[in-house]
């Protein structure tokens, strides 16, 4: 109980500091933020912006005001010459695309990495094991955007098997949706496959040396059952932690891959915000990503308990 409270306290602290940091980004801008954000229009627009962002108030007041807006879903505005529109509207359009991309990539990575990790661990030292490990090591050295560019060019342009760019909504056409997501998901997943596979293999090799595996064998259970029912779960804890931490890498990767495949997600949103110098939007987007990332890791922590009863009872 005490432990849970302390964890909660830490979580609150991290969230506070992260949002504080992002909320102050605008003040880091060299020069007058209002000038930078609204270089067009007249002084009254900028005055309104200063008012909106509380730029003339002391930091604590500005932070509290920003946080109040942020938690109620007000992420500031996107300032255009023609129109001023809420960032939140853009986010509700873009976030699902990014989330789907990351989900597909993560699922794809795990679906490939888990069997590979299990099989290579079981046949540690075999040709298949060595081949897979060497390949994984090579894949780790390929930046995901390089893979994305190559796939988009070779499979999309040269071979024409899949769309090299563009996005189709799930609700518009399921088949086309998946076709448009295959290459981006593979690009994003490849590196993760290598990481996950190597991790799982190490842990599995250790688990397979354990007495309870020998005992499971001595029960006469099939090899498959021993591997998948007895060895996999105790071996998957490191994998799970890293999968949680890796969401960070995944987010970064997704941003770039969205840009390459022109998927209208958060990456493209940030890209546009940066090229159009929309710092209010950047600030909210970064805060959103950071908060989401922290929460994912809290969730992973809870999953841990589900996988390992020893942790569950230690927490009471």
């Amino acid at each position: 109980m005490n432990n849970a409270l302390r964890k909660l306290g830490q979580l609150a602290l991290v969230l506070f500091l992260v949002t504080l940091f992002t909320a102050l980004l605008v003040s880091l801008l060299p020069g007058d933020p209002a000038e930078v954000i609204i270089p067009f229009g007249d002084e009254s627009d900028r005055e309104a912006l200063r008012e909106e962002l509380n730029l003339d108030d002391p930091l604590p007041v500005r932070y509290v005001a920003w946080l109040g807006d942020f938690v109620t879903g007000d992420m500031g505005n996107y300032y255009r010459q023609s129109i001023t529109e809420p960032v939140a509207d853009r986010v509700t359009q873009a976030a699902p695309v990014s989330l789907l991309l990351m989900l597909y990539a993560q699922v794809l990575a795990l679906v490939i990495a888990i069997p590979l990790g299990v099989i290579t661990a079981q046949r540690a030292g075999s040709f298949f094991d060595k081949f897979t490990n060497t390949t994984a090591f090579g894949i780790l050295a390929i930046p995901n955007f390089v893979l994305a560019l190559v796939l988009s060019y070779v499979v999309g342009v040269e071979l024409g098997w899949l769309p090299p760019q563009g996005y189709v909504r799930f609700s518009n056409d399921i088949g086309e949706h998946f076709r448009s997501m295959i290459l981006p998901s593979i690009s994003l997943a490849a590196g993760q496959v290598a990481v996950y596979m190597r991790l799982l293999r190490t842990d599995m090799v250790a688990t397979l040396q354990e007495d309870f595996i020998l005992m499971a064998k001595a029960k006469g259970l099939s090899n498959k059952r021993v591997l998948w029912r007895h060895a996999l779960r105790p071996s998957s804890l490191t994998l799970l932690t890293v999968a949680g931490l890796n969401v960070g890498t995944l987010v970064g990767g997704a941003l770039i891959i969205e840009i390459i495949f022109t998927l209208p997600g958060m990456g493209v949103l940030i890209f546009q915000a940066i090229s159009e110098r929309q710092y209010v939007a950047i600030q909210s987007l970064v805060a959103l990503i950071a908060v989401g990332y922290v929460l994912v890791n809290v969730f992973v922590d809870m999953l841990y308990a589900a996988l390992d009863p020893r942790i569950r009872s230690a927490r009471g």
Partner: protein
Amino acid sequence: MARRRIVAEPSKDQTEPLLVVDDLHTTFRTPSGRVRAVNGVSFELKQGRTLGIVGESGSGKSVLSRTIMGLLPSNNVEVTGSARYRGNELVGAKSSVLRSLWGSELSMIFQDPMTSLNPVMRIGKQITEVLRHHLDMSNDEAEDMAVSLLRSVKIPEPEKRVRQYPHELSGGMRQRVVIAVALACGPHLLFADEPTTALDVTVQAQILDLLDEQQRERFMSMVLVTHDLGVVAGRAHDIAVMYAGRIVEMAPTRTLFQNMRMPYTQALFESIPKLDLPSHTRLTVIPGRPPDLVNPPTGCSFAPRCERAQARCLEEQPPLMEAETPDHRYACFYPVGTPEGDEALAENRRRGYQAAGVPVMIQEKAS
């Protein structure tokens, strides 16, 4: 799930051995050389009998039971010779054949209950999975059976235990669970590999009594592997003493304790604390270390540590010889309790050292 089961013919003649082991060798290929862990072991075990296998760690006793079970890792291991269970050859048998025997006909209890149960699987599941696999039970049947198995190994509140995880139980309770798992399908042959070594002294006797009781009730055969001669003393029908991968003496328990012939057996016997000795009596220790199994000595492998060793012991491997007492065999040229043996010991004491050059102390018993 493959459920091909070997139909082991119940033997017509009850005295026909359940397990016949003949000249079994197990060799590990390691970077430092070939380790001859089991080096020509033969014995027979009849239905309903308990065989105690005693030896120091490194004597090959655990490897022996795993070799018979066929549970050794497949890489870098060579097994030759024969181990027949009810006439079925186990050495080199297909893994599907072995799997159908494991758990149903042959079972094994491991040394450390802290590590031999799956930490992330409920106790009940660990029992029911073997029942469902071998006996085709339904889930409900298996669960009922699991509860009654836990009750039979004297675990209190078995209904509650089946839903718990191993870490919620004490070491002794866990070993009872392991026993319940091993006995679940009613095996005819049980290997218990140091079943009490990892447990508290107070719990050891309870676990051994439980094994004893189950063995008698089920008329099972049991191979009880231990480093402690005291453990097998009152519980095994026969005892085999192992040293450096070989059986060096084998006899019915009573015969062995009354007429031990092998100096090594005697040394093991003298290293057991005895209640009738005054307190603070120093226990006899066996000098030296177990032999190097990669480059075993030419003659008797115990010779470098034996206070009776003569030149012959260093050159010639003593064969397993029949003693005058029935069913008693030993491998020694100068056995304990014989004129030759006494003469050899007396000579070494006169010289002050034995054939391998190790000093022999002139020591009086109970000094």
